[in-house]
């Protein structure tokens, strides 16, 4: 018997001696058996239903009609959690069934074994009382007789023996049946009473029967309590309750409404209990306080609610915040900022910093640990989703500014007992607000830095004129919000404000005087967003009457781009000293004759950010390659986004090349004064820009550049073809060979025209040849070490073909204004094509599926004699005819067989492609709107893959 049992026994024994407590008790075996039987039947029915329900749950849990992340979670819920729950309910039912059986069995063993037994405390008492009356009467009569005998013995014993009658048998019989006669004396009563109270020795049979009933009752209560039905039911209820309460909040509404008052005073009485709250409690509290906040219009009256609710939310931790919580927090923060309530704001910002261990190494009996510390941007963005950046501008911008704090790393060291080593400190970050001259100031302090900045409203900062300017270059309201709130430093704010309001070259020039070194990463992002938008606003794609895609220029947009480029990139850099400017060697990235070529840091920002964006979009691209072929809308969205970055990058590259070529020409001058002039490239100016598309739909940019410092040239007009974006190292020897070959071919083509290669300029960090073709200068790379595809994931063999097949690969193209070198750069569409061909084979260009099958059959029919001109020789010695056919099938359809195409060398792969190109005699219908050409190379170049 457990502690609980002992406790119950002690309490029960205390009152079992009182007959009134037990009055009315009975136990009816047939009725109880019937009652328990009813329960057993119900449990059985429930179990039968449950078995059907298990099947239904399993069907949902294993279905493939709904698959994915949510589906997996829901299926796990059914197959594991809810199946276990139902099993536990059934187990409880089983245990109760067993308990019922035990109760009946115990009665049988301890009270009465008769299957029809019925025992009633009151009936037994009544019988006992009746017999006690008879006993008393009997005893009274016995006493009368005994007295009479004694009297007779006293009077007449001299005459002979008068035998005493023994009445003990009758007395004992009565006593055994209904207990001793209390009238016999106090001693007898005391003895009887003590026997009656004893579990073991009840006085009289009837008392004994009653006692058995009472004892049975007591022991059965213990049995029931020890079955822990309450706790098991409670546990099962809790496992369902999070749902139940959600749907039926009235269950707990009243309970927690009573606790609201505790929050009003701002104390933490209830908060101390939150650790023991269940999810049900938490959801309920959230609901109540969300309502209070939403309904509240009186800050003063309800301030304590906000503070208390924020305390609660901090207490449960940001990891448990729902979207609804974040909405509530946004309201609290807005009220705090609006009312300059720094205490409330600081309270609300408690969970918005983080310290994360990013590296740990053992060091002399302890650890060296590197932490990352910063503001939780992701969490803040969830809050900002509920803030209107226009009507709640100060809140939105201030919170954005906080979130834009650059994350930091901090190193510290520990002893092996976990204490910080002497000379080191723990990482920390403090985020708080204060009032300075009634203005809200935010302070972020870390081990490394301390940032102070004022709250700001960027919607008001850019003003209506700025807002309309941004709309005019095609920004949506969402774009403007992102641009305007990409601020952290004061210079970021000046930049965003200046850019949004600038319209002329002079105004952009003024913006460029903001020290770029004082811009944060957020300011860089803002500048990138803006520049890309200005560029993108120059043109629209249209389809002409022949169905070709052309660029339609937007004259206002081009003027804006000219003003922006001249003011921001080509104007004199900011008002830094000469020494300071030495740090701005950006555009050139190399020295020429020992001197750094100067360029503009805003250019560097635009270039590096666009490069970053392009790389990001490349990652996205890989995802979209595998999209369903029919999902053209998604693909077009991707291509549009990537082309914008791509073309902007091309434009920036063109400017850089142009500026640097001019510089090179100037350093050819001999006098020191002339050379000094060359350093100043900031007087260079873009005079005009024109845009058009080339055959693959890519935008092509021509522009003219003038430099007032040029004195040795008759003409200051130059024309630059778009230089393809590259920028990473050539990663395989084959591509480098191809590149070098193309450069050589290019140079030969120039010299064959009777022209001289007069010098070189740096592009992509390496030297390029400069060719002076009349008034046209074309810059090309001559080294190639730093040239590579912008997409590294194309399998090498296909990449090899990309060079040969695609006009975006390495090639020299003669154009009316001069020659152009295409240097191994694959635009989004090219890379897409290559991935599709790699996946689906060359047959992807076929219009008719029968042709695909026919070529496949043709390949299957090939014999050894067919492999004489191609796919023969020593390189193919180890391949059987069947294996060669598998390779051809793979290249044609993308289907892989036993032989992996990965095993082929590049030469073998080329050979196999040429086999198909030269041997397919059937009349195959390729996509005749685009995939035209004699060779696969030409077909692929012209093919519109999407």
């Amino acid at each position, binding site marked *: 018997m457990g502690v609980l049992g002992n406790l119950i026994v002690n309490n029960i024994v205390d009152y079992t001696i009182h007959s009134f407590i037990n009055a009315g008790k009975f136990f009816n075996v047939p009725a109880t058996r019937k009652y328990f039987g009813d329960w057993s039947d119900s449990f059985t029915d*429930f179990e039968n239903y449950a078995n059907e329900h298990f099947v239904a749950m399993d069907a*949902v849990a294993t279905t493939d009609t709904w698959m*994915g992340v949510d589906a997996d979670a829901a299926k796990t819920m059914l197959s594991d*959690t809810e199946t276990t729950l139902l099993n536990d309910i059934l187990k409880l039912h089983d245990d109760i069934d067993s308990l019922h059986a035990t109760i009946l069995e115990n009665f049988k063993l301890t009270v009465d074994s008769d299957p029809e037994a019925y025992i009633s405390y009151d009936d037994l008492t009544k019988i006992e009382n009746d017999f006690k009356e008879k006993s008393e009467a009997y005893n009274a009569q016995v006493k009368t007789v005994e007295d009479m005998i004694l009297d007779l013995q006293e009077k007449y014993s001299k005459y002979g023996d008068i035998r005493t009658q023994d009445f003990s048998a009758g007395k004992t019989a009565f006593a055994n049946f209904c207990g001793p006669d209390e009238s016999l004396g106090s001693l007898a009563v005391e003895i009887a009473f003590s026997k009656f109270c004893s579990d073991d020795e009840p006085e009289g049979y009837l008392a004994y029967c009653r006692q058995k009933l009472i004892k049975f009752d007591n022991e059965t209560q213990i049995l029931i309590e020890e079955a822990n039905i309450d706790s098991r039911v409670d546990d099962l209820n809790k496992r369902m309750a999070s749902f139940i309460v959600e749907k039926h909040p009235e269950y707990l509404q009243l309970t927690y409404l009573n606790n609201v008052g505790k929050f009003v005073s701002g104390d933490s009485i209830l908060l101390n209990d939150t650790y023991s709250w269940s999810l049900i409690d938490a959801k309920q509290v959230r609901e109540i306080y969300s309502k209070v906040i939403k309904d509240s219009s009186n800050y003063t009256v309800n301030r304590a609610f906000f503070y208390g609710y924020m305390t609660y939310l901090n207490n449960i931790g940001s990891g448990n915040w729902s979207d609804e919580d974040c909405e509530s927090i946004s309201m609290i923060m807005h009220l705090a900022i609006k009312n300059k309530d720094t205490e409330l704001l600081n309270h609300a910002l408690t969970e918005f910093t983080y310290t994360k261990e990013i590296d740990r190494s053992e060091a002399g009996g302890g650890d060296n640990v590197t932490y990352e510390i910063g503001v939780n941007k992701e969490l803040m963005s969830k809050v900002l989703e509920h803030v209107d950046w226009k009507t709640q501008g100060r809140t939105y911008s201030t919170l954005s500014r906080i979130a834009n704090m650059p994350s930091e790393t901090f190193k510290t060291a520990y002893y092996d007992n976990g204490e910080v080593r002497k000379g080191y400190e723990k990482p920390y970050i403090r985020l708080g607000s204060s009032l300075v001259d009634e203005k809200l100031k935010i302070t972020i302090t870390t081990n490394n830095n301390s940032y102070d900045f004022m709250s700001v409203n960027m919607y008001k900062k850019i003003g209506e004129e700025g807002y309309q300017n941004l709309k005019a270059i095609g920004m949506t309201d969402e774009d403007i919000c992102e641009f305007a709130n990409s601020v952290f430093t004061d210079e970021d704010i000046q930049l965003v404000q200046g850019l949004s309001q600038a319209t002329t070259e002079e105004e952009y020039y003024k913006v460029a005087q903001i020290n770029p070194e004082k811009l944060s990463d957020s300011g860089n992002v803002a500048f990138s967003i803006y520049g890309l938008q200005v560029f993108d606003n120059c043109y629209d794609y249209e389809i002409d009457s022949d169905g070709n895609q052309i660029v339609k220029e937007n004259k206002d947009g081009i003027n804006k781009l000219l003003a922006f480029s001249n003011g921001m990139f080509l104007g004199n850099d900011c008002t830094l000293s000469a020494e300071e400017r030495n740090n701005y060697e950006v555009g050139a990235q190399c020295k020429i004759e020992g001197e750094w070529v100067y360029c503009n840091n805003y250019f560097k920002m635009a270039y590096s950010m666009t490069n970053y964006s392009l790389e990001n979009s490349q990652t996205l691209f890989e995802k979209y390659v595998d999209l369903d072929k029919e999902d053209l809308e998604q693909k077009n969205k991707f291509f549009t986004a990537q082309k914008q970055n791509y073309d902007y990058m091309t434009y920036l590259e063109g400017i850089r090349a142009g500026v640097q070529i001019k510089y090179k020409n100037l350093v050819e001058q001999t006098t020191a004064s002339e050379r000094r002039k060359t350093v100043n490239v900031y007087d260079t100016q873009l005079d005009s820009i024109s845009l058009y598309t080339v055959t693959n739909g890519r935008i092509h940019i021509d522009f003219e550049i003038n430099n007032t410092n040029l004195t040795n040239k008759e003409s200051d007009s130059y024309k630059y073809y778009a230089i393809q974006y590259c920028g990473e190292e050539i990663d395989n020897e084959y591509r480098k060979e191809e590149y070098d070959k193309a450069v050589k071919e290019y140079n030969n083509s120039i010299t064959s025209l009777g022209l001289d290669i007069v010098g070189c300029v740096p592009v992509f960090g390496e030297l390029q040849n400069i060719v002076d073709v009349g008034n046209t200068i074309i810059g090309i790379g001559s080294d190639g070490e730093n040239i590579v595809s912008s997409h590294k994931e194309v399998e090498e063999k296909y990449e090899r073909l990309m060079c040969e097949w695609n006009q975006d690969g390495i090639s020299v193209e003669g154009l009316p204004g001069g020659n152009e070198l295409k240097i191994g750069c694959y635009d989004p569409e090219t890379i897409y094509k290559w991935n599709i061909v790699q996946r689906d084979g060359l047959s992807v260009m076929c219009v008719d599926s029968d042709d695909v099958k026919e070529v496949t059959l043709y390949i299957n029919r090939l014999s050894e004699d067919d492999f004489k001109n191609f796919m023969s020789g020593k390189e193919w010695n180890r391949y059987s005819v069947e294996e060669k056919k598998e390779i051809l099938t793979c290249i044609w359809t993308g289907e892989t067989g036993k032989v992996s195409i990965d095993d082929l060398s590049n030469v073998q792969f080329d050979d196999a492609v040429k086999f198909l190109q030269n041997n397919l005699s059937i009349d195959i219908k390729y996509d005749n709107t685009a995939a035209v050409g004699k060779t696969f190379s030409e077909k692929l170049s012209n093919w519109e893959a999407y």
Partner: protein
Amino acid sequence: MAEADVYLGLVNSDSSQGEYYNPEEFNLLLDDLNETASIMTIEDAVFISKAAAEGTNAMELLNQKLDQVQQMTNRYKTFMTVDVSGLITDCTTNVQTADSISGDAIDVAN
């Protein structure tokens, strides 16, 4: 998305992107789930014989427990047919709307 999120009803559009969902066939399974759950009750009739058996403190105590067991057991029906089914429906509805949202990711990324 963790199972706990489903429990709390924290379905969201992001987690549903890329899911496969066949509404017609899946709804048949869901209907079956609801149908089998809807009959899972312990009727009040089970207490008809209660009075004839409730002659001791123990039986009185037992009946209190049985009353709780009946309520808890019958709550399971509501739990499955209203709450669990409701959340699963929320999830699947979410799948259907996720596609229209997912396209925005490109613009955001760029």
